[in-house]
């Protein structure tokens, strides 16, 4: 019996050392990971995730504080890419996609003050002082920064209309037990 206790104890100690050594030697450098994660993100620093810009969100994701679905403009594509990079399974059920909202400017209300133009991180708004402003739909990421800046509330976020070209079959809904 003594032999059994001794051998198992020695084995446990040896394996413990091996694991500790591996944790040291094969540890992943978080700094490099943060840079890689940041490279995947949109880079607009819109702040919808609640972190200070894309670098902040990247650091949080690398540290494990934020989930991979934290970035709304990134959508499912970004979440999947991040999950693949981190080697984890992502729960994508809550992620909406295709930039569900786009800014639109009501031309009758716009006074041409240029405040929204200065705010837009992708320069998606065209216009000049005292000229009507308009949003270029392809460049708008739906970050929403412009909405608060407008003094006349001319800017609104509206859902992107679905066209026949971009319509996607929804996932079939079966009973929960066998979905």
């Amino acid at each position, binding site marked *: 019996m003594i032999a059994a206790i001794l051998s198992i104890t020695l084995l446990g100690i040896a394996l413990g050392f091996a694991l500790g050594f591996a944790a040291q030697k094969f540890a992943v450098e978080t700094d490099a990971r943060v840079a890689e994660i940041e490279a995947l993100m949109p*880079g607009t620093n819109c702040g919808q995730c609640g972190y200070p810009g894309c670098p902040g969100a990247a650091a949080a994701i690398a540290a494990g504080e934020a989930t991979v679905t934290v970035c709304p403009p990134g959508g499912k594509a970004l979440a999947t890419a991040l999950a693949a990079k981190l080697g984890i399974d992502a729960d994508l059920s809550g992620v909406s996609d295709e930039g569900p909202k786009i800014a639109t400017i009501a031309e009758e209300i716009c006074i041409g003050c240029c405040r929204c133009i200065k705010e837009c991180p992708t320069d998606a708004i065209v216009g000049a002082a005292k000229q009507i402003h308009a949003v270029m739909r392809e460049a708008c990421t739906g970050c929403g920064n412009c909405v608060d800046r407008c003094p006349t509330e001319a800017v609104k976020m509206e859902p992107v209309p679905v066209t026949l070209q971009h319509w996607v079959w929804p996932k079939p809904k079966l009973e929960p037990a066998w979905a």
Partner: protein
Amino acid sequence: MGLIEKIFSLLEPAHWGVHPADRKRPAADVPVRTLPLPARLYVPLQQHIGAAARPIVLVGQTVLKGQLLAEAQGATSAAVHAPTSGIVAAIGDITAPHPSGLGFPAVTIESDGDDRWAYGYEGGVCVDPFSLPPQEIARRVAAAGVVGLGGATFPSALKLGLGLRAKIHTLILNGGECEPYLSCDDRLMRDCAAEIVDGIRIMLHATGATTALVGIEDNKPEAMAAMTAAARDFPDIQVRSVPARYPMGSEKHLFSALTGQEVPADGRTTDLGALVHNVGTAWAVHEALRQGRPLVERLVTLNGGALERPGNIRVPIGALVADVLAFVGLKTEPARLVMGGPMMGNRLPHARVPVVKGTSGILALTALEAASLDPGPCIRCSSCVRACPVGLLPLEMSARIGVDDLNGAVDLGLKDCIACGCCSYVCPSRIPLVHYFNHAKGELAAQGRAQLRNDAAKRLAAARVERLAREAQEKAAAAARRKAERAAQKAAEKAAAEAAQQASEEATA
């Protein structure tokens, strides 16, 4: 072929799809009827793969039959012509024959009842297509708006050009019509065999191919006979029988059945020297080159248990499905309206959708005929594995898609899926497998688009940062320049003042 390979191929059953009940007769044996001209025709601008056509007519304009309504936008596009004479009543949206129920733009023509053909269609009536160079034939086919009439609606001129460039040697004509209920190609081959053969000869000339193989399923003996008789004088056109099995009409499977070769997964039939066209497309090419007529009408099979008088109807493009159903008569309210065949057709949201160039059939199914919508759990019977003509694992792919593991499904071969419906057809639990695959493919495409948007947004944000930095730099440079100028001016003033002072000092001295 290794030993393991040989053993596997002996033990694995050949993947050849399913054999659903035919249900083509008696509709296939009824002579073709022509739909009486409807009061209004709604001609969609997108009836083909590629960019939508751009309208060149205005509301209120009078048009004649065959007149160009919208021109092709780019190479992968097709022109759209007026199916009858009349006035352009509107250019707006109409419900698309698509399960989403979304709309798409269409030109509404209020017919004047005369059905007058326009003359002066580009190029005029051509007497001898064989004197024209192949590129000219393709150009005329494009001008006639001919697209693949088997249902895929790929612009035919583009396909002919592809065949010419790939230096194909065999033209394959798809007379399979493997879907149950449908018989428009069957009828066309029986009634217009000579025209089809003529179209085949023109297409041979347009592609430089030396042989044409016409594949007809063995459940169409009359069509076989008619086509064989029509092709008798042309030894380069061979009519062959293929076993009736679904999906024999799939391009790659028909090719394999006729030539015994297999198309590589990332390639096309042109890589192996063959080009596949539908027999209806051959007929349309004949019409375009010999009669000078653009594609403005087609044969549509009306079938299904809810119809009074099923059969094949000659329908102008743009006629509403409701008009055609009224013509053939409804015995009962259909439980399901389908455009196309039952295996791959689209369920229609209602009957007020237009007939388009790719409409091979309209089915009015009773509740008994239509598949039930009551799925159960997967019992892993692997009937779907045996039914899949491509050799995929539908049960595994759908399980992964169910948990949103789309990449896992792609690893199992999702991109090779042809959405034929064999798997869902045999599933005893009635799982909507094709629905899963359609969803996954669409979702992946949407994610790809989202990724492109992300990349573009990143570039725009970087460009903005650069712009701001540049403007700040220019501002600083301009400010520094102005400062230097002012300093220089001040120095000049000071020098001038000193000089003046010195001059006055000298004057007083």
